[in-house]
């Protein structure tokens, strides 16, 4: 049902119930605004979106209203261009500018500034204010964000985003009248995992990207490429900006099904690993197993590779969950299916396979983040999303509000009327149930939390399924508390319209994934959708799991003589995945170890031939996120030196090995096509992504903005002639400011721009409506709709109840947003945020073990021991301890396993 409204004399058929501002933006009509935001709705504070409303066609006078607060109803008559409204908007800008420092020439926001856009759009251009401006002190906010308060125009977006949208607690508005201050109570690191979005949410240069500022570049001088975040399995869409051959920043790229407008801080600031010293620039060779590899000439490398590959009886390959599908495929081609190992441990491999099987079940639906945001009851089983899949945690936070939005809706308050909804909803929340061994940030929005060992969480999960559907196997011997918890959860899920279960593989518990699947299937039988979201460890864990492969332990376990002569390892540091002795032994046994990677790791140090390959920024490839969505990233800039993409390197190796199948892979499309043809799970990829020959009116899509400047001056200190811009044979994108002027397909957007909007608020004009989908559909497409399994077969619980043993703790992994992910930890900004290794125990346990809070304690596990700091969490069950996991410098640990603790000093 549509309603007819009239804007400046033109009639439009529009969706009812929206506000006038978002309706105008969806229609492509410029209405200046500041405080409204697609994801956060309206509060009517800035007063910039004023338009004139007329009572009826005879009303000549009209009155000024705020378009963001005006519901769109049949017969609405408004004028955006009315002279009074225009004058009023200009006056708002004038008033905002009186205290603004007007320091655009040195401002980090300049050129991409919403305030600049609005100044030009409203036409305010003459300053009548001739007094001293008010000034503020700035704060130190940590390694990610710079603060320049003088530029603030008091739109309140920052606090609304930080506090209301993400649940942050340490950013607030202070002061009053014309002396408002947006910042922290005192200097200090912004605590929220989503603080980086302030850079995009703030319409001026108050909050800016500190990592970009260090190498300041005008925004219009960045060369931008659509990319996909590689720092967790969610696969948020990004735009990566380059200048002078260095990656300079990550901005969010809108994807209505995945990350919407936002990114997490790991995703935004983790990019620095691309630029670090630790990068491998040249190919290297080592002469003996006892030395480290050293740089070698191309000829030496070529002959070493040829010798290793052509002379081998058996070549094996270990792929990687952080490499693209195409790179893994090329490796599989090089070594043959039977010799291709997935590059993950057996536990992870089994879990991934199980999870993928489950997600392909007809009864199960793997939801997108957008769908998670729409859920009205969520059970989270054993996954600390804030640390393992941050943007999923943000989606859950939005889901928690749905009940309140519904309650408000029942009293006629539209969802976009943000303040009124919050006022009406008060504490009403959709039931979010957090079952996790230790306290997690999402607990604060949870209706109920359940603290237990993984096995108990899984058992309660099984019980929940059995309570929803008798067909699901029940669990014997549950305590009264567990039973009532299970009953509560079952009721909450059954009563919801869109219930959802979220779990993950980080806990290493197959039972838990099975329990989650049982619940989803039981819900399906109960008439619901059976929505189950499973979080994976890495950016392409899902994609890798969909390929034929075996855990690498299978290779390591073979008798020494049948292992292989030549082992090719793709973008993988095996020391992060198994005990050092096992990997040492494996690498020792293989005559030739060829490693392709971009950063120096324990594994690259043990390579006989080390081949430098591009990071995501110097390659193209496809990743499959945890939803099962295939998404492509593109080369941001051509790599330096001998660095090439992994798939290209592997293509060369194939030729060395005598396999000339790859000779025809001239560009990326060819390898992608070959993969699509040979792996049925990826058949859809072919034809779904615009290929390298895609053109708009015969033109490629430009990476650079139309204002890209100083092209000829950039390298004038070396040569005054303008170099030819590099060619990109692998994508429809050009390293140029020349190209198609039309809007590209959603997955190829390099910049958000539309006349009048240089800031990223131009994004709204790429959407069917603010906070909606990208025009023409959101980027990426789902591979999982196959419904491979149809009949419902419930899983049965395997492990029994957890029983603590005196003096022993079950050590469970506590992943950290900053530190646990391999690549992002290498960048200096993220590195500053990495905590020192710690263990979490409850107070009674700690007392029993004779250890004290904040002290270093010795932790002894079956095969290793380490020193960690003790944190107390009174909610963690007795006999269970959480250990920070995967932090730089920590050894590989196969968790959960049992461990002992003692005071370091004694």
């Amino acid at each position, binding site marked *: 049902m549509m309603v007819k409204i009239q804007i400046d004399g033109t009639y439009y058929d529009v969706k009812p119930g929206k506000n006038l501002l978002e309706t105008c933006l969806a229609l492509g009509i410029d209405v200046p605004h500041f405080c409204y935001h697609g994801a956060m709705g309206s509060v009517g504070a800035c007063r910039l979106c004023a338009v004139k409303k007329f009572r009826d066609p005879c009303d000549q006078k009209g009155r000024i209203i705020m378009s963001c607060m005006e519901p769109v109803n049949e017969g609405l008559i408004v004028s955006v261009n009315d002279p009074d409204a225009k004058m009023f908007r200009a006056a708002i800008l004038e*008033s905002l500018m009186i205290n603004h420092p007007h320091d655009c020439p040195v401002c980090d926001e300049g050129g991409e500034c919403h305030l600049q856009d609005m100044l030009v759009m409203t036409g305010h251009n003459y300053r009548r204010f001739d007094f001293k401006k008010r000034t503020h002190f700035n704060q130190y906010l940590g390694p990610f964000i710079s603060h320049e308060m003088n530029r603030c125009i008091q739109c309140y977006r920052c606090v609304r985003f930080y506090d209301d949208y993400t649940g942050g607690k340490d950013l607030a508005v202070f002061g009053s009248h014309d002396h408002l201050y947006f910042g922290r109570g005192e200097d200090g690191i912004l605590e929220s995992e989503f603080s980086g979005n302030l850079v995009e949410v703030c319409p001026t240069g108050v909050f800016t990207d500190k990592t970009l500022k260090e190498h300041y570049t005008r925004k219009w001088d960045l060369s931008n490429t659509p990319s996909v975040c590689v720092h967790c399995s969610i696969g948020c869409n990004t735009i990566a900006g380059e200048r002078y051959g260095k990656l300079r920043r990550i901005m969010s790229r809108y994807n209505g099904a995945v990350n919407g407008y936002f990114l997490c801080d790991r995703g935004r600031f983790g990019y620095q690993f691309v630029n670090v010293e630790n990068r491998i620039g040249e190919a290297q060779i080592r002469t003996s197993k006892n030395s480290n590899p050293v740089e070698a000439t191309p000829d030496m490398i070529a002959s070493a590779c040829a010798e290793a590959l052509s002379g081998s009886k058996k070549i094996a390959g270990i792929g990687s969950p952080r490499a693209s599908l195409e790179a893994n495929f090329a490796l599989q081609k090089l070594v043959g299916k039977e010799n291709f190992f997935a590059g993950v441990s057996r536990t992870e491999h089994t879990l991934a396979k199980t999870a993928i099987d489950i997600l392909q079940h007809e009864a199960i639906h793997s939801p997108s983040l957008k769908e998670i945001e729409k859920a009205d009851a969520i059970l989270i089983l054993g996954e600390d999303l804030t640390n393992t899949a941050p943007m999923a945690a943000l989606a859950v936070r939005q889901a928690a509000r749905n009940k309140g939005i519904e309650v408000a809706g029942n009293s006629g308050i539209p969802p976009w009327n943000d303040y009124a909804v919050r006022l009406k909803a008060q504490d009403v929340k959709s039931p979010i149930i957090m079952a996790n061994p230790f306290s997690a940030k999402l607990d604060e929005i949870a209706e109920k939390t359940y603290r237990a060992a993984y096995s108990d969480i899984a058992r309660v999960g099984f019980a929940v399924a059995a309570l929803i559907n008798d067909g699901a196997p029940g669990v014997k011997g549950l305590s009264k508390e567990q039973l009532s918890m299970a009953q509560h959860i079952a009721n909450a899920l059954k009563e919801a319209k869109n219930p959802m279960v979220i779990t993950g593989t980080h806990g290493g518990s197959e039972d838990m994934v099975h329990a989650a699947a049982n619940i989803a299937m039981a819900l399906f039988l109960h008439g619901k959708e059976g929505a189950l979201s499973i979080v994976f460890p890495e950016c392409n864990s899902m994609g890798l799991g969909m390929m034929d492969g075996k855990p690498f332990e299978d290779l390591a376990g073979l008798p020494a003589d049948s292992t292989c002569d030549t082992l090719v390892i793709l973008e993988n540091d095996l020391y992060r995945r198994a005990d050092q002795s096992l990997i040492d032994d494996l690498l020792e046994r293989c005559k030739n170890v060829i490693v392709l990677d971009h950063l120096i790791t324990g594994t690259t140090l043990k390579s006989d031939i080390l081949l430098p390959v591009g990071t995501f920024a110097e390659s193209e490839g496809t990743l499959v996120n945890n939803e099962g969505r295939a998404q492509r990233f593109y080369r941001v800039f051509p790599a330096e030196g001998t660095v090439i993409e992994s798939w290209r390197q592997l293509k060369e190796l194939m030729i060395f090995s005598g396999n000339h199948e790859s000779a025809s892979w001239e560009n990326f499309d060819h390898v992608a096509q070959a993969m699509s043809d040979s792996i049925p799970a990826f058949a859809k990829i072919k034809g779904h992504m615009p290929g390298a020959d895609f053109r708009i009116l015969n033109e490629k899509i430009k990476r650079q903005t139309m204002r890209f400047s100083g092209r000829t001056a950039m390298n004038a200190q070396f040569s005054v002639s303008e170099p030819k811009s590099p060619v990109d044979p692998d994508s429809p994108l050009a390293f140029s400011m020349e190209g198609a002027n039309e809007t590209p397909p959603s997955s190829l957007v390099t910049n958000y721009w539309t006349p009048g909007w240089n800031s990223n608020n131009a994004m709204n004009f790429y959407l069917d409506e603010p906070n909606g989908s990208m025009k023409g559909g959101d980027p990426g497409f789902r591979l999982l709709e196959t419904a491979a399994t149809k009949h419902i077969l419930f899983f049965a619980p395997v492990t029994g109840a957890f029983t603590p043993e005196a003096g022993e703790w079950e050590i469970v992994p506590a992943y950290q947003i900053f530190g646990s992910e391999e690549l992002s930890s290498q960048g200096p900004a993220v590195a500053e945020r990495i905590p020192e290794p710690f263990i979490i125990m409850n107070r009674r346990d700690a007392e029993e073990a004779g250890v004290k809070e904040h002290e270093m304690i010795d932790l002894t596990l079956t095969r290793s021991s380490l020193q960690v700091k003790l944190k107390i969490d009174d909610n963690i069950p007795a006999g269970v301890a959480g250990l920070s996991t995967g932090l730089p410098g920590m050894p590989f640990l196969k968790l959960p396993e049992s461990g002992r603790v003692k005071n370091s000093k004694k």
Partner: protein
Amino acid sequence: MGGKVLLANVDIPGIRGFDTYRAHGGYIAVEKALREMTATEVSLEVHKSGLRGRGGAGFPTGLKWSFLDRKSDKPRYLVCNADESEPGTFKDRYLMHHLPHLLLEGLIISSYALGVETCYIYIRGEFKYLVGVLEKAIKEAYQHGFLGERILGTGFSLKIYVHPGAGAYICGEETALLESLEGKRGNPRIKPPFPAFKGLYGCPTVVNNVETLAAVGPIINMGGEAYAKIGRGRSTGTKLISACGHINNPGVYEIEMGLPVEDFIYAPRYCGGIANDKLLKAVIPGGSSVPILPADLILNTAQGEQRLMTFESLAEGDFESGTMLGSGGFIVLDEDACIVRNTLNLTRFYRHESCGQCSPCREGTGWMEKVLHRIEHGEGKMSDIDLLVRVAKNIEGNTICPLGDAAAWPVASAIRHFRREFVYHVKFPEVVKNIDHGAIQSDTELLIPDSGTGIKYW
């Protein structure tokens, strides 16, 4: 002139205490309402009385009460607005100080009528000493069974809490008040939703001024119709006026609505005329936010009719030549008062008290203050005067709450009626420093070029 309704007993020694208050007819209204009347009947009496809000806007109280969402299953609240911070207004303070039980009576009866079981008195932070007075009165009321569970053996129970603010004027605006009461920053909310639907903690809420609520007891005693007979037209009953400025008898007066302004200023029982035998220059009759009027327009309307102390008469002539009864803070300026300095003073107040939420008010008040400061200090420009008018115009009617209007009107009206004084400040900065401001009013000899707008002002 009719007798006093609210302050009839104010001079009785000890009237602040329960016993004396009770001995002089106190709490009879409560007994009458709770024992003999239904909640609807009480509301009906208030409706019939024609009582209008005494907090500034003059909104009919009966009508406001009828908006309260009675369908909601949530608790309902009554909030007494005792934040009285408007410059020139000090009647609520007087009332609470001397007659706390009169307010409590009003609260009890109103709560009964509205079906409220919890009532808050949000009191201005600076009135710290009154918190004790009110709490003592509340304690006495509990002790005598007029508060607490099952009052007077009826099914009606009520708790009253006193909540001091932290000294922000904006927290007198009803929605900012509710925010503050909830423990948040006192930023006004956008209406709708109105408090009657989503008020305190999202529950249906009525916010009324102290004086409004205090009038409820007497209304029940005398009957709505009898109350409506006092006063004039739609301005029924009596009104407390806090008079201050250059008058002989500053203080709080209870007047019957309809009293001529002239009488109020000059009658010995009220203001007693202008102090030191000076001439009247201007009056701000309803608290600092209402438009200022020069002597001739405050005594008589532009049509030459006598101005009366009613909502309607004071507003006669709209913004061109009228003003408002507002909260009844009657500020009188004599011939020597400097309008520019006075306006600067008020604007400084509004700048300081703006919550900072919406752009026109937050930035506009600061800007106006700076410009006025400059003019007052002999550094003004001719264009500043029109600039002030423009900035004020941009604020007026375009903000989230009426503080924006309250800040704009004093400036706009001062320039409208006393433009020559602003011009004089710009043109003769040196003279202004020691001038007799009254002289400028009548001085037509000053030849001042037009300010660029094409309009000549004298």
